[in-house]
């Protein structure tokens, strides 16, 4: 082991992978990460909850039932809404961060990191206090006379998207801030000096240059929003069903493991499809 570490310590650039050092983590991943997914795939091919008969029944049942197809679509939609909402809020904040003095940058960074370091359960809990019938939003709206009766914000898609926006925004902001800091100020200055308005400079210079950061952020937000079990179940309640709550219900309440495995793999495909669409968008954007 000592010799292996030493080799890496002075490895010249472009050398081979030092397998002796990569093996411990690699094996851990094989045993505790890859193998479980293989078992999951295997169990999905049982036809019945008792796991006695092999067959495609679980897959067929899932993909021919309109209810389950709607659950997949709703889950995808939730991820897309979360990406749109975090993008609309994070880009302006990232521009402000870029223009801020070093001291203010530190303050902003702290504000951005603080929610990220607060437990997801607690952030969800906070939104219950805010969105409830007698919560902060309804109290404010009623005091302003904007609504006579309290609005029902919990157990709605809107309420869930609002909560997820706060919960996921740091994931969008961190890659965006990094790439904004790396962006060449001369390009922005050149655009302005040539007479482009701030709007035009933003859409024609800043946006294309920061797209890789946005794609990194959007990937994390999408992956995180579609799998946010706690927020989905607590704020969405029983009325809104997404893939994670379906997986939970099928595996731990109904004990239909093959069906839960199909739902679980579907969630995996949904997230992978989102990631691939985003990276395709990135390649497409760079060539034009």
């Amino acid at each position, binding site marked *: 082991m000592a010799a292996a570490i030493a080799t*890496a310590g002075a490895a010249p650039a*472009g050398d*081979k992978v030092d397998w002796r050092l990569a093996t411990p983590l*690699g094996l851990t991943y094989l045993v505790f990460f890859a193998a479980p997914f293989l078992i999951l795939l295997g169990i999905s091919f049982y036809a019945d909850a008792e796991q006695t008969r092999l067959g495609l029944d679980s897959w067929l049942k899932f993909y021919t039932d309109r209810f389950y197809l709607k659950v997949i679509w709703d889950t995808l939609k939730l991820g897309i809404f979360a990406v749109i909402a975090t993008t609309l809020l994070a880009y302006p904040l990232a521009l402000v961060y870029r223009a801020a003095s070093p001291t203010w940058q530190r303050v902003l960074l702290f504000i951005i990191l603080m929610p990220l370091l*607060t437990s997801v359960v*607690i952030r969800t809990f906070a939104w*219950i206090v805010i969105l409830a019938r007698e919560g902060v939003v309804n109290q404010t709206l009623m005091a302003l006379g904007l609504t006579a009766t309290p609005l029902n914000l919990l157990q709605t898609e809107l309420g869930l998207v609002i909560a997820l926006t706060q919960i996921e925004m740091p994931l969008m902001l*961190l890659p965006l801030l*990094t790439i904004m800091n790396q962006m060449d100020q001369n390009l922005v200055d050149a655009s302005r000096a040539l007479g482009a308005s701030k709007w035009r400079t933003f859409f024609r210079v800043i946006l294309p240059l920061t797209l890789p950061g946005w794609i990194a952020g959007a990937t994390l937000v999408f992956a995180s929003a579609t799998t946010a079990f706690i927020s989905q179940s607590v704020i969405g309640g029983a009325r809104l069903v997404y893939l994670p709550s379906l997986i939970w219900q099928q*595996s731990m309440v109904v004990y239909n493991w093959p069906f839960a495995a199909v739902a679980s793999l579907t969630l995996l495909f949904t997230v992978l499809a989102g990631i691939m669409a985003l990276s395709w968008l990135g390649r497409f954007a760079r060539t034009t």
Partner: protein
Amino acid sequence: MSQRSTPADVSFNLVVGAISTVAILILVAPVIIVIATSFTTSQALRFPPPGLSLRWYGELFDPVRSAPIHTAAINSVWVAGWATVIGSVLSVLAALAITRVARPSARALEASFLSPLVLPTLSYGLAALMFFSVMGIRPSLNLLIAGHLVVIAPFVFRTTLASLTQLDPALLEASANLGASRFYSFRRITLPLIAPGIAAGAFLAFIASMDNVPVSLFLSTARTSMLPIRMWGMMESTLDVRIAAIAGVLILATLVLMVVMDRLTGLTRRMSA
């Protein structure tokens, strides 16, 4: 650098300013509201609280009435601690193995070691439960450590790799030319220089493990209950104000840790880098 202000530029500044204000409000408000709620005198979760008291903190620290919460908290710290220590050692070795290697095999390893960051860990949680039950292994804290380990290792791997790419290879060449053994160079040059990166990654990994729901949801049992899962249970059944008090304690602990880590490692810089 300043240009003449056209109406278009003014409208741009207004829109950016307004949206940023909303964004900051959305980021900060929930944290402040939870902390304020935790000091309420009432039974109900209302903001603003009718009066301020430490009543719910008293309830939370009551060793008898809050015993299940204390057990869950101790389990969570235990699992997060071990997962972070083991995950850090394995990740640092793996990062050393592929640093500065341009080959496709190195890129493939990097992508697979980072994959738990984007693959749905909820799917993984169920997969792990099925795997252990097929293997006939009974749920325990050790299983939770194994599950968490896989999910949080990427945090250390990523920050260590970033530190290693910033390390000047000339330092290692100089050390070798002066007759230092390779292990000596690693111990005296590489390790001290990448230590802040490792520490920042370990901090994030520990926080991620303490906060992990998707894996704990499937692998923890009544006997090995974990803090976020217990809090979820408390939210589902009764909206117990003690949750706000737990939030207060966790936020304070995280803030203290964050300030310490920032002093030691420049954490805030690293997280945006």
